């Protein structure tokens, strides 16, 4: 006789009694062996108990696949107990990938049509959790029948199952569309909740459904009104009220704009915010107001509600408020600005989620008028923030500084501060940006080099800082030694000190190879800038001739040769660098990459090292001066003849072929053009600059451009340069879109423009399908 099997509770007791992981595993394996034997023997009485035990073991992480067929048998049994466990097992163990799942289709069909209500409920639940496309197609008629059953319990489950089916098999939308209107007349909240989800799903899938449901919008508003005015209990307030909002907000019609402001304000003023449910409702109201095109007054009300929430003591409310404001900041920038002080206070939160949201929002709120104050706050935050936020904060500050810097000196100061505080977390191109910036600000050379020297003297561990400092000292060493910069206290710096510092950088184990390269080149440049003799420098250089790092070795050998054989050329070669040309502040990546070729020629040190050495090899061939194995003079070609020569070479990566611009919109003199850039270093990224120009006689004001892309792409919109285009060819508005397209799917854009022109408000929505092939292939 078979030993009586353990009840579920007893098994759990045993597992809990196990003192170690190994013991637990033993107990479970023994029990699984029993279960397997029992399944083999086909014992119908205790099958449900065995499966329940198996499901428990599955939750703990042990394999349970041998129970799949047993689920089928249990579902087919006539007892409710068996069916319950069987369906649960099906939901937890079976899925589309196993062929066995189709076998339960028949059982489900029988249960749906003939079972008692709990059984129907179970079947629907299972279908909505793991129903595959084939199953959904087969069982759609049964579910449709159940939608019209009198019992609310089964109907609400049937409705949600219908939602799942539509998700799996969109063609079924036509089947489930007709009953929806009828279902809206129900009073039962569970049914209403489900119906609204179903309608939302239908509307999202097809515009035809959307048109169909526009007619029922008044009814929805009616439901909303009754819920609001009769006063609702907490049980229903989430389901009843929030969901009409969600639905309404997403798919508004023209009729809504008349009726909804009334209901929205009603809800906004009547909702009891002392309970969490009330707050949830208010949030949804706010989001609805923002989604549909409400009057300006209503939008301000919405933003003010959010502002009030920001002051709430409950952290959850503040978090949701920050999230919502972030969504609104693009469209209602000025309204959100009013709450800037509160947002900045939220930066001080100890809560990581909150401070991250506050950081994102603060960065979005920076504009040219508040940039100094905001930067101060953000820099203070940078010093104290948790490490995972540092990178975002640093890059955010740098970006904002670039766009809104009032003066160059301020800009340099800011970047310097960021480098000293969070140097290890900045992006790679920060170094290039800073060197270019300093190079361009002639009047600030002395100031910059002093500050960098001081910073370097204190701390040589932050690599970006060290790199920039080394470069500066190399370039402007003479200014450093003059010692009479009026903006900082005069400090007498000795030549020997400078050289010692650079040597320290060279020898430090914290320095990256790139940093060492910077330092070595800087030393070399100093050989022409300093008055003293160059013995020390020559010594250092000759030491590195036998360095293990190939890059450094090559440089050292070249520099050494420069001292020995080509000393007459040394001064000319090591002159001050000409300014590196650069595009505007927008797309840093595109500037960096398209200038990689240009940078070669102008010999900025670092990021282009490998290309530089390729270039030298080419020069070697062409000069024909390869008699001796010496490398020709390196990186700092004097401007002039050599430059022109180099331009003829098909040297390292050629800049990518420019993609033609595309004009996408024109109306009464207002035009929108798209220009495309694809940085070669990141083929999945597409940068689109949308430029709005105005050749008409009237100004364009309140210009807002919004974009949407298909789901396989990711879109990021940056804030536009402004929202007014003056008439007659005034300064255009530019806005940058970043699109990530890892699957190389064809890019389609849907654009929505709203603006005021000739005292009329214009809204245009159109799709752009004819983007050039090079933008996404």
């Amino acid at each position: 006789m078979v030993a009586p099997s353990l009840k579920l509770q007893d098994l759990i007791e045993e597992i809990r009694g196990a003192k170690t992981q190994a013991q637990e595993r033993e107990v479970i394996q023994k029990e699984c062996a029993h279960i397997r034997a029992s399944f083999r023997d086909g014992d119908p009485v205790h099958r449900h108990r065995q499966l329940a035990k198996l499901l428990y073991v599955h939750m703990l992480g042990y394999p349970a696949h041998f129970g799949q067929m047993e689920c089928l048998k249990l579902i087919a049994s006539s007892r409710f107990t068996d069916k319950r466990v069987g369906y649960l097992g099906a939901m937890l163990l079976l899925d589309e990938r196993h062929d066995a799942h189709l076998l339960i289709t028949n059982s489900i069909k029988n249960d749906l049509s003939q079972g008692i209500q709990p059984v129907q409920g179970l079947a629907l639940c299972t279908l909505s959790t793991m129903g595959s496309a084939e199953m959904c197609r087969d069982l759609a008629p049964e579910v449709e029948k159940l939608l019209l059953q009198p019992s609310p319990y089964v109907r609400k489950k049937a409705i949600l199952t219908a939602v799942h089916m539509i998700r799996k098999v969109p063609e079924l939308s036509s089947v489930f569309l007709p009953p929806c209107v009828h279902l809206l007349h129900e009073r039962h909240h569970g049914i209403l909740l489900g119906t609204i989800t179903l309608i939302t799903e239908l509307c999202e899938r097809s515009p035809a459904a959307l048109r169909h449901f526009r007619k029922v919008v008044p009814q929805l508003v009616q439901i909303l009104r009754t819920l609001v005015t009769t006063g609702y209990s907490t049980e229903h307030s989430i389901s009843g009220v929030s969901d009409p909002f969600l639905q309404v907000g997403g798919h508004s019609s023209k009729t809504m704009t008349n009726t909804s402001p009334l209901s929205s304000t009603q809800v906004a003023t009547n909702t009891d915010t002392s309970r969490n449910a009330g707050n949830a409702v208010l949030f949804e109201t706010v989001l609805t107001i923002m989604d549909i095109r409400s009057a300006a007054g209503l939008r301000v009300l919405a933003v003010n509600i959010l502002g009030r929430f920001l002051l709430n003591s409950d952290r959850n409310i503040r978090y949701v408020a920050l999230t919502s404001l972030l969504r609104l900041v693009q469209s209602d920038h000025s309204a959100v600005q009013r709450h800037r002080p509160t947002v900045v206070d939220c930066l001080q939160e100890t809560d990581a989620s909150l401070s991250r949201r506050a950081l994102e929002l603060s960065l979005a709120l920076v504009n040219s008028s508040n940039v100094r104050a905001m930067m101060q706050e953000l820099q203070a935050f940078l010093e104290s923030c948790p490490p995972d936020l540092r990178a975002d904060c640093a890059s955010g500050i740098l970006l904002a500084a670039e766009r809104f810097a009032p003066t160059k000196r301020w800009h340099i100061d800011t970047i310097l501060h960021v480098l000293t505080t969070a140097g290890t977390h900045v992006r790679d191109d920060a170094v290039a940006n800073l060197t270019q910036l300093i190079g361009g600000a002639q009047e600030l050379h002395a100031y910059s080099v002093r500050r960098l020297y001081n910073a370097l003297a204190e701390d040589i561990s932050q690599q970006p800082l060290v790199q920039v400092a080394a470069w500066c000292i190399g370039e402007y060493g003479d200014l450093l030694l003059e010692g009479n910069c009026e903006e900082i206290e005069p400090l007498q710096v000795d030549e020997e000190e400078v050289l010692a510092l650079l040597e320290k950088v060279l020898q430090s184990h914290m320095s990256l190879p790139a940093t060492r390269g910077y330092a070595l080149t800087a030393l070399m440049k100093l050989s022409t800038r300093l008055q003293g003799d160059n013995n020390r420098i020559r010594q250092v250089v000759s030491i590195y001739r036998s360095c293990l790092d190939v890059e450094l070795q090559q440089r050292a050998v070249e520099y050494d040769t420069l001292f020995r054989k080509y000393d007459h050329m040394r001064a000319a070669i090591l002159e001050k660098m000409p300014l590196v040309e650069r595009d505007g502040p927008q797309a840093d990546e595109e500037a960096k990459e398209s200038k990689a070729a240009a940078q070669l020629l102008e010999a900025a040190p670092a990021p282009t090292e490998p290309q530089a050495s390729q270039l030298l090899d080419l020069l070697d061939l062409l000069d024909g001066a390869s008699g001796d194995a010496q490398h020709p003079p390196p990186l700092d070609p004097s401007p002039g003849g050599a430059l022109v020569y180099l331009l003829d070479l098909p040297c390292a990566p050629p800049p990518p072929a420019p993609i033609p611009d595309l004009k996408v919109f024109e109306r009464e003199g207002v035009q929108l053009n798209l220009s495309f850039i694809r940085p070669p270093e990141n083929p999945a990224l597409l940068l689109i600059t949308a430029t709005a120009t105005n050749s008409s006689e009237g100004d364009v004001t309140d210009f807002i451009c919004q974009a949407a892309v298909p789901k396989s792409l990711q879109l990021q919109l940056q804030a536009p340069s402004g929202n007014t285009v003056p008439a007659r060819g005034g300064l255009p508005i530019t806005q940058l879109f970043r699109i990530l397209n890892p699957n190389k799917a064809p890019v389609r854009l849907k654009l929505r423009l709203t603006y005021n022109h000739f005292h009329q408000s214009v809204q245009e929505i159109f799709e752009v399908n004819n983007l050039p092939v090079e933008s996404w292939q």
Partner: protein
Amino acid sequence: MIQAILVFNNHGKPRLVRFYQRFPEEIQQQIVRETFHLVLKRDDNICNFLEGGSLIGGSDYKLIYRHYATLYFVFCVDSSESELGILDLIQVFVETLDKCFENVCELDLIFHMDKVHYILQEVVMGGMVLETNMNEIVAQIEAQNRLEKSEVSKQLCSSPGWVEKTWAEAGVCTCVGLCCCETSGNDTHLLSSLSPLKLMDLKVNQP
């Protein structure tokens, strides 16, 4: 849409694991562990929202959690759900558990894992919120439990030689079962009746 519902204790042992999107088993366990580590780091007085881990779907998903005594209830949702609404939903779920189990504690969840699943099925179905009214949920569960008990006793008393044992073990259940045998054909009776049958009625129906 709700992607997953996880309940684990302060040491990370899973007490309820329900995924509404398909993941292979190892990934499921990994998600539970990762979520536990994320949630454990949080203090008690900071907000209940976490940006999700990398495994569960990425940037669109949030973890909304609540800490009750020794258990963490974690709902992983996407951006279409209202965050505050989900917080309330967790509260409703726990209160329902409380009603069904009488002062529910972790042990109840441990030993009655299947029942907790059944209760959850009445609240969330297929990743969508089904019902938030506690009374309705509890009524449903009680009706289903009664159905199950009646079947157990039906089975017990239908096999001969078990009758004496039946009376000793099952007690009132048997009586209820016998009554229901008479009325089992009528579905609505079982579901709509909320009060258990009184003992007086039972005497009348015994054979």
